[in-house]
């Protein structure tokens, strides 16, 4: 099959970019979207043009490296990671627009590569259970009902790709943050820090990301189908945290 690509090209973070047109010819329909880009890139090198830079790694939909706006939607709106999109999902002769993830929190590094360190910053402010190596009790000491473990796992599946942020008209980081806060906050071992965690992570999130106004575009593109119910849960934990007794320093009294 043949498709026309219109791709954002930008040499480095400080040089302005623009959309460029490319022909992708004789692409097998079994090829993945990224393999189609590989083929285009090999042809570009042949013509002495620099290949299109895009982030990718595992190509199994789990590492969260890949991600781009395809026809205006994060991961093309296929609710899967970009590496799991296949060309059979397009028609011969299609024109496909390919842009980097769009969000103020994700500055462009080159072409389709963006900087997502803001998500790591949110994690570093509370996305953990403080359980240093060696201090753990026996793994079966705390029974966790199957439904609770499964629900926690639903949130824990987040691959940290940033599609939720890119798709949100506000560039909000709520779905990502909610996934982590819920994964840990649902488990018995995550209770000690439950409200501190929500408070700290939301505070950091708001430094980098826009506010959530319940468009729910994030859920519509999430490759792991993380539910916006978790955002409601995040808001509940965050709200509750505001009413818990705090020291004058603003920290929780139980810290």
């Amino acid at each position: 099959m043949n498709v026309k690509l219109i791709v954002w090209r930008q040499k480095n973070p400080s040089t302005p970019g623009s959309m460029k047109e490319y022909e992708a010819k004789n692409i097998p329909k079994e090829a993945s979207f990224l393999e189609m880009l590989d083929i285009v890139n090999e042809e570009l090198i042949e013509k002495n043009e620099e290949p299109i830079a895009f982030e990718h790694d595992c190509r199994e939909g789990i590492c969260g490296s890949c991600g781009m706006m395809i026809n205006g939607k994060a991961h093309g709106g296929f609710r899967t990671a970009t590496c799991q999109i296949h060309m059979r999902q397009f028609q011969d002769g299609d024109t496909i627009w390919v842009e980097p993830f769009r969000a103020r929190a994700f500055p462009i590094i080159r072409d389709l590569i963006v900087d997502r360190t803001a998500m790591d910053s949110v994690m570093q402010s509370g996305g953990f259970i403080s359980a240093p190596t060696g201090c753990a009790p026996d793994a079966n000491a705390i029974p966790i009902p199957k439904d609770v473990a499964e629900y926690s796992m639903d949130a824990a599946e987040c691959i940290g790709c940033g599609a939720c942020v890119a798709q949100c008209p506000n560039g909000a980081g709520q779905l990502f943050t909610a996934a982590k806060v819920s994964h840990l906050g649902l488990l018995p071992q995550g209770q000690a820090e439950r409200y501190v965690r929500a408070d700290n992570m939301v505070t950091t999130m708001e430094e980098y990301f826009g506010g959530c106004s319940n468009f729910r575009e994030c859920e519509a593109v999430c490759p792991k189908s993380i539910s916006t119910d978790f955002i409601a849960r995040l808001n509940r934990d965050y709200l509750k945290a505001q009413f818990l007794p705090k020291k004058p320093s603003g920290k929780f009294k139980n810290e």
Partner: protein
Amino acid sequence: MELKSAIPPGPLAQKWTSAKFTNKLVNPANKRKFDVIVVGAGLAGASAAATLGELGYKVTCIVYHDSPRRAHSIAAQGGINAAKNYQNDGDSVHRLFYDTIKGGDFRAREANVHRLAEVSVDIIDQCVAQGVPFAREYGGMLDNRSFGGAQVSRTFYARGQTGQQLLLGAYSALSRQIGLGNVKMITRTEVQDIVVVDGKARGVVCRDLVSGKVYSLAGDAVVLGTGGYAPVFYLSTNAKYSNCTAIWRAHRRGALFANPCYTQIHPTCIPQTGDFQSKLTLMSESLRNDGRVWVPKKQADCAKPPGSIAEADRDYYLERKYPSYGNLAPRDISSRAAKEACDDGRGVGPGGRGVYLDFSEAIGRLGKNVIAERYGNLFTMYHEITDENPYDVPMRIYPAAHYTMGGLWVDYNLMSNLEGLFVIGEANFSDHGANRLGASALMQGLADGYFVLPYTIGNYLVPMMGKKVATDRPEFKAAEAEVADRTKKLLSTGGKKSAEAYWRDLGKIMWEKSGMARDAAGLKAARSEIAALREEYWKNVKVLGAGDEPNQALEKASRVADFFELAELMVVDGLAREESAGGHFRTEHQTEEGEAKRNDEEFSYVSAWEWKGVGAEPQLHKEPLVYEEVKLATRSYK
């Protein structure tokens, strides 16, 4: 050179306990005076960096990804082994130890493997405490499943995403240490050389992948947790960025490379569909708990739809050949059996390179819901990639390069012969012998990072107190200059062929001549083909763009260059090992039934190779394998 394995004296089961006591300790107040550089943040690197940070060391962790949550450990699907015996089915530390030694075809170090089995139980406790949502029974207790090469259920799992959940656990612990300021995280940076000062590893040379800047970092010890080298085959189940650069540069600086020919070809991967393909996708071994592997008995049936082939005309070859382990025969054996069936003209799918993995019996017995709960995400992934629904038609699978048991040589303390250089996880050679059992890679990565290295590194560091080196020393400057020169060379060949194209060529040689089955003639031919291709590469590789801006083609070209040199060593090692063991199957050495035939008299040793220069003959050093506990036996799964 004498290889000192540093295995503690005493009975096997007491060795680790006694080592923990005899190892010197660093006083808590002194720990912050030591700088430790950890390269890589997969299961091994992230767990090590986090734990060393918790202990109080000053840690710098370097990754080429944008975040320490992306390493390929994340793609491990099926599970992690531990000798918890929660199922009351006869498991024990000793049984896990024995299964691992036997699974590795009696080519691993007893003491290391026993320690691995001992700490396996702590790993599960630690992960649960961190919030890893392992699968549970209705009563709230942890669930287990079975994996290849074991007759007990000792594998803990989180749906089909166990590696992801374990890595996110380690990443959380690491994030906490980064937030607390105990670990300095450097992302989008590749380590391109190891700096040796007075015979000790004292730092690394980094290349910033955004600005192209080359600079050094000095430390009191360097830890490599940079994974394996399966992408030397081009098509593998590994991630596209996975590479051998850090361990290879360490090798060139004097670290010995052990057992490079021990590579694992995983039996259950989605078969290749065309030449455009960039990687292969694994379908977890856990699927063989409920899936049955078969091919048609008659060649004429291969093109028919599988549903139309009568039960009597199907050859469930694993169940037939290995009745006691059946579909859960170990990976090397299952892979070779699949190859045999396809070589016999009974393969299915495009090119006849595939066998069926059939769930219809399990769906009939357990219902679709139970199967979906156990393997839902794997079935979805298979469906997305192949456009076939495995609930309705059997999966088609074929072996693919997956894991490398070989790696840098390390002693019992996980330190290479290059003092101060520690190597953990898949990057070292230590625990899996000639074949790794399923669900043991996650176990080893976390064992090394959480529970072994943090105990052994202090012993090395104690006498290093107050002996800092600075990066303005000539050794650092020389290494930086070499890295910069190499980049310049790759950018200025004026060549005509892309690094990707060369990588494919290399992979083809390796897969055909150093893959599932090898022989002397093929390996010899491979060696000269690789050498010729390597020489051509440096004259004709085409890398566009500049070195001072983000340049993925340049990164790839540098990694492929290292794969060439490593490939040559793999072939040399394969040629020197005149026996079959685990993943290394020399067709000249097989039993009448076509099983691997070891030669314990002559080859019961670890091959540790010393670098002698590009294209030069590497020097072999042997570490004899001494078995005190286990009796060497022919591995049988019948």
